[in-house]
């Protein structure tokens, strides 16, 4: 009986792995066949020597970093205040953060274009970044919320207050350091979402990594496969960083447990 169930567990696992890795392998294999009858990294060489690659990737980096900064500034104080004073607002705020799951990016962007076109704001990068902030909200909110749940926000705040601390000190010395792991999570997830984003950037006519991949896909054969693999590598690298930093310093979890 036990043997049978473990067989099915393995079978499901193997099917899952094939489903996941086979297309990836096919893409990778295809990206190596730019030179006829030989495996080579020619497609990668072409991509990495294309100045457009760097320009577009650079833009995407800028959008990502700006999005992360703006998103942190918006979400952390809001969620902190929600935990401290407005717990009954949680359902409302949580519902609002789910917005990008309900409204597809295309619809959202068309809405933005209709709304902001009369104000001549479409060329403003802030519009793109703000849209990215909205797209990253569910992940940002959830990470920060989970981090704040793990520490006793109210008592720690009050303890700091009774010791003479003002709001900036409380946030910078008490709350942020104890949120380190969840803030890193939020940052990396936001980065992963925005770095390869295509829909919004394309519709708002901005250069970005996503747009570049799409452009190459329409023009070339082997390079898009190489780019897809590179994009995949970046995302995986970020996930690896989350895993690495997410573990935190030794005893971090125990520290959090000890604060309860």
């Amino acid at each position: 009986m036990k043997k049978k169930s473990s067989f099915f567990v393995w079978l499901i696992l193997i099917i899952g792995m094939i489903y996941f890795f086979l297309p990836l392998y096919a893409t990778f294999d295809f990206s190596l066949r730019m030179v006829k009858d030989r495996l080579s990294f020619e497609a990668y060489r072409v991509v990495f020597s294309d100045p457009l690659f760097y320009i577009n990737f650079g833009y995407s980096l800028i959008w990502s970093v700006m999005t992360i900064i703006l998103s942190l500034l918006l979400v952390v104080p809001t969620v902190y205040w929600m935990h401290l004073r407005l717990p009954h607002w949680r359902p409302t705020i949580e519902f609002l953060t789910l917005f990008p799951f309900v409204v597809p990016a295309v619809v959202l962007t068309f809405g933005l274009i209709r709304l902001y076109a009369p104000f001549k704001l479409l060329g403003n990068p802030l519009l793109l970044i703000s849209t990215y902030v909205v797209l990253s909200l569910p992940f940002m909110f959830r990470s920060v919320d989970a981090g704040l749940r793990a520490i006793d926000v109210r008592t720690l705040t009050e303890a700091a207050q009774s010791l003479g601390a003002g709001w900036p000190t409380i946030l910078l010395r008490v709350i942020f350091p104890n949120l380190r792991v969840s803030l890193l999570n939020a940052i990396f997830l936001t980065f992963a979402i925005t770095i390869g984003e295509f829909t919004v950037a394309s519709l708002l006519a901005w250069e970005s990594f996503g747009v570049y991949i799409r452009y190459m896909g329409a023009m070339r054969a082997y390079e898009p496969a190489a780019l897809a693999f590179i994009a995949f590598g970046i995302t995986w690298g970020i996930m690896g960083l989350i895993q690495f930093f997410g573990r935190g310093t030794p005893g971090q979890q125990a520290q959090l447990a000890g604060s309860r």
Partner: protein
Amino acid sequence: MAFLEINNVSKSFSKNTFAVQDFDLRVDKGELVSFLGPSGCGKTTTLRMVAGFETPSTGKITVNGEDITFRPPNQRDVGMVFQAYALFPNMTVGDNIGFGLKIAKKPPEQIKKRVDEMLDLIHMPGYADRYPYQLSGGQQQRVALARALALSPQVLLLDEPLSALDAKIRVSLRAEIRAIQHKLGITAIYVTHDQEEALSISDRVVVMNNARIEQVGPPFEIYNFPKTEFVAQFVGTLNAFSAEVVDPARQTLRLEGQFLQTQEDLSKRRAGERVMIAIRPERFSFATDGKKDNLFNCTIESITFLGSIVRIQVSFGRVTLNMDTFNNPHLELPKIGDKTQITCSSEAVLILEQGDGQIKPL
């Protein structure tokens, strides 16, 4: 003028429901006053108003003559110890204790010196570099106490500081808190729902119920002369009965057909009126020959061995009451179902006023 004055403070969160109502108290310098009451009675809300985490709806709070009613908590010069310790998990013990001094921009040498002093005070020298998660609950709470005291605040507030600890540590730490408070001569307010804790640690106890003060007094007075039924019931164990006044002038009452004498003033009562009386279990004893007053003929219902004392439940008529007797190896205990006579002195019979709290209809 008292050092800490809480003048007629009320707090209502919504119309007509009070968390605290007409709280009036003067605390002298160096005094430890505890607020005792069941959860939701307003004791923590009152403490939080002194700390500045809540603002009173009406009334005034002054410390050393200064009105602090609406001053933000970080400008009050008040130290606070929380039930959940609330040590900063990202900081070492030393950094936790020095946190307030660092914010006050004291020079590093001075901070270090003060931190070492505080660690000596809580008998934890050499712990400065540990993290809170490496300490036991009792140690964490001692560090929290040191952190609250490091700034030499004018008032120390303790919000159920021992509730999260186990029984043995609770008893030893409360003695330590009291000793430190004595040594520093700091004015302190101690919130607890544990009557034994309140009685053992305080100079005075404020018993609260339903947002109001029921009685204020030294522990001895609170225990021996409870003014209201609530205080009598909440502090210690108690036998409370409704008895009939027989002769106000001679202070005679009747309980289930048996007469008893009290030393309390009954001159305002009428014969036939019913009053609430209370007798502590330890005031009863088995009757010896020749005793005539306050004799009850009763039946033994149960005997419970509680270590240092033995609690015996007896009944007569519709009344069941507890009597406590000290344990000793030569104690001759009756058996369940035995008929016996018990007695108590007339001064043990207390008449209870009706407090503002929930009173059982007589």
